[in-house]
């Protein structure tokens, strides 16, 4: 078996092992909690410490990313472990919280945990779906280069449209550019587009551009086709920008809340032990 086959087998094996271990851990925790409750023990302390350990384990991914030069397994394996451990922690979290949640701090902590968990689930889903959508665009664009590329295509479109006025074929293309294309090239896309990027505007503009053909001669037609390509490029850039920004924003949110959560958990543990009641 060569290295590539080995890699694939190891990915599948990793998934099976991780799923089984998560399931076993959940069952074991549920049995243990039930056993503690049956013996009139403090089940919330048991689930609390389990949750603390599991949550601490989730931070190991960040640590692994920092120690990139060490031979500690691939980050993808650690991410997979993070995902399964996150699932386990979320289930234990549900076992741990009492309902209704009492106290503003406890509500804030629970909300923070829930948002981190939800962003984590959404990130997992989006990291599988969005790359495929991004790769449907013929060319890949790096997020930090997109503003410069947008500016470049806007400038090119402007020059081309102005130049087309000198063909002696009338001002059809320039007028259309001024009224319909200039706002498209200059404006940022709406918030709605950033959440649900669609090709509606692009298709409409391209159709309208195509409708101009009957008024254009040879040189005008060539310019029209070049403008159509630029509209397509601008739309591709906007599409990439929208999807990549969405992913990064969610990732930043997940990370930022993760560290807030760490602080809140620490306060929660201190508070629990500070005000813990004792049975005489």
């Amino acid at each position, binding site marked *: 078996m*060569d*290295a*590539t*086959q080995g*890699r*694939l087998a190891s*990915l*599948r094996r*990793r*998934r099976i092992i991780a799923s089984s271990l998560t399931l076993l851990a959940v069952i074991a925790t549920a049995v243990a909690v039930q056993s503690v409750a049956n013996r009139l023990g403090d089940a919330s302390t048991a689930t609390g410490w389990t949750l603390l350990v599991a949550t601490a384990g989730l931070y190991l991914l960040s640590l692994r*990313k920092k120690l*990139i*030069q*060490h*031979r*500690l*397994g*691939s*980050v*993808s394996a*650690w*991410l997979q472990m993070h995902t399964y451990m996150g699932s386990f922690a979320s289930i234990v979290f549900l076992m741990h919280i009492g309902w209704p949640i009492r106290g503003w701090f406890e509500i804030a902590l629970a909300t923070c945990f829930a948002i981190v968990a939800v962003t984590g689930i959404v990130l997992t889903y*989006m*990291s*599988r779906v*969005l*790359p*495929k959508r*991004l*790769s449907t665009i*013929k*060319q*890949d664009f*790096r*997020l930090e280069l997109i503003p410069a590329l947008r500016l470049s295509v806007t400038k090119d479109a402007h020059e081309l449209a102005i130049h087309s006025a000198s063909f002696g074929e009338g001002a059809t293309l320039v007028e259309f550019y001024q009224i319909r294309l200039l706002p498209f090239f200059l404006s940022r896309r709406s918030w709605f587009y950033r959440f649900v990027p669609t090709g509606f505007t692009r298709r409409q503009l391209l159709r309208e551009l195509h409708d101009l053909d009957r008024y254009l001669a040879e040189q005008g037609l060539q310019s029209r086709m070049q403008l159509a390509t630029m509209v397509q490029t601008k739309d591709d850039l906007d599409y990439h920008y929208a999807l*990549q920004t969405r*992913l*990064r924003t969610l*990732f930043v949110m997940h990370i930022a809340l993760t560290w807030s959560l760490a602080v809140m958990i620490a306060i929660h543990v201190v508070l629990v032990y500070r005000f813990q009641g004792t049975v005489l």
Partner: protein
Amino acid sequence: MAQEQVEVQRPERWDHPLDPNTSDASIDQLLKLPPFALMDERRFAQTAGLKDILKNDSRLLDLKSGDVIFREGQYGGSAYLVLSGQVRIFLTRLLPEDSRRNERRSEIPWLSLFRKQPDRRRASRGARALVAQARPVAFSQRGEGQNARVFLQDVPGVLADHASSVVTSGELFGEMAAVTRSPREFTAVAEDDCSVLEIRWQGLKLLKQDPQFRTLLDERYRSEVLSTHLRETPLLRYVPDDHLAKVVAAVTFESFGNLEWYAEYRKQAKQSAAVQIASEPIIAEEGTYAIGLWIVRGGFARLSRRQGAGHRTLAYLGKGQLFGLRELYHNRIRDNSARALPFQESLRAIGYVDALCIPKQVVFEHVLPFMRAADLPAPLSSPHYQFGQPVLDAELIRPDEQTVETGLLEFMVDHRLMNGREAMVIDLDRCTRCDDCLRACSTTHGGDQPLFSRSGPQYGPWMFAQACMHCADPVCMIGCPTGAIHRDQESGTININPQTCIGCKSCAESCPYDNIRMVRTSDSSGRVRVDEANGLPILQATKCDLCSQSSSGPACQSACPHDALIRIDLGDLQKVSQWMQRKAA
């Protein structure tokens, strides 16, 4: 705020000679010996005269009996000229494949000399009859540090067990690996106490300005190819010696294209596929008489078939691969009433190709009768080309014929990507564009800029990122005047020595893939180094070094959280195909 600067003298070509201890007297002595005594010093530039070349680009090696000069499979950038004594060239492998595979990796440098190269394409050359019967070969180390040398014990015993040839005073050897940028094909050992002059590739290139030396080089190059490499072809492994001698006598060695192909490629890259293919030298053409069996010796060749008005690439053939065997075998076993078949595909040189041709009659008489049934090709049931018959149109999609889809294959050949041994391929269907790979690269290399760019040619969801591919044929090395860019003898990775890089940009300009960048240099205090003569910054070449200083392998690959990035040998289509067809995990 302007960055602080420090004025320094611009580094020059011979700031770091191969042997700093070489004296003028020893060079004068050398100039009296052939072939240097026969050279015309006026043919060399004043700034790089014959004496300068010998002083800076060569060194004298005083060897004892049994000293290993280099071993098979190592990469090397030097040729060797025997000044006195004798050197043995071992044509058979001294260490059997199995023992080397089981050998534990050692950090002791001299032991690593005998470590197996991680080059799977070479594995097929494993079985050689002589080795099977040979007694184990023992090596020892003499001296320490820089002067350490590995030597072969019991030279007479080893000579009795292994086929070898002798190189005597005035003869050159080892230049082929240096010229073709390929691994050594044999092991060279000092037979008795001898003196050998090592000439590094950069000097060798300058010495070639002299026609006398060029002739010596060419003659040696050809005879070496014919005598050693035919024996290595798996197809000929069971051919008896007397028949092999007939094959050796009849075989012809031919070169196609240009060794410095990158300049032409840059011009052709923007042309249409048809123009690109038309510019590739034809080695053998479909529909023409199958006149012989071609064996690719070096470089890559495009195997294609006409499709409509164009040509469809079926595969690319690399070192050791054959062309024409199917047709010749068919013609050999056909009924007397049936007509001979012409070549069914075309073979074209991509860049530069070294190839051997064994004439048809010699294949019939001295090769085919000794081939094992398992090695014989399947009969041609529905040939596309038959003399006197209309040409059958090829089916557009024949998955059984190719390992990867046609479009991808064409793309890789057109972009010369098959040259990459450690190419960075990113699966954009998985890549979330998180840039963890870039950050990992940057962190591993001291927090500076990453040594690659997450951009590059794209085919569907596959991006061939701009990271050094550590090519099979590293053309970036050709023009380097100091040897700063070199191939690691053991791992085969291409590295840049910052001590000897003079910032001439030769490598960056010759890399066909734009994977080498020139960056400003700074001293230990972080001050930018500028040329004291004109104030211009001192540049240095930089590129991916495959994290050679790190024990955990390429950081980019291990840092990818989604398994979207791989460093892969694009010459191995089966591996590429397996990776690309993997299921979502």
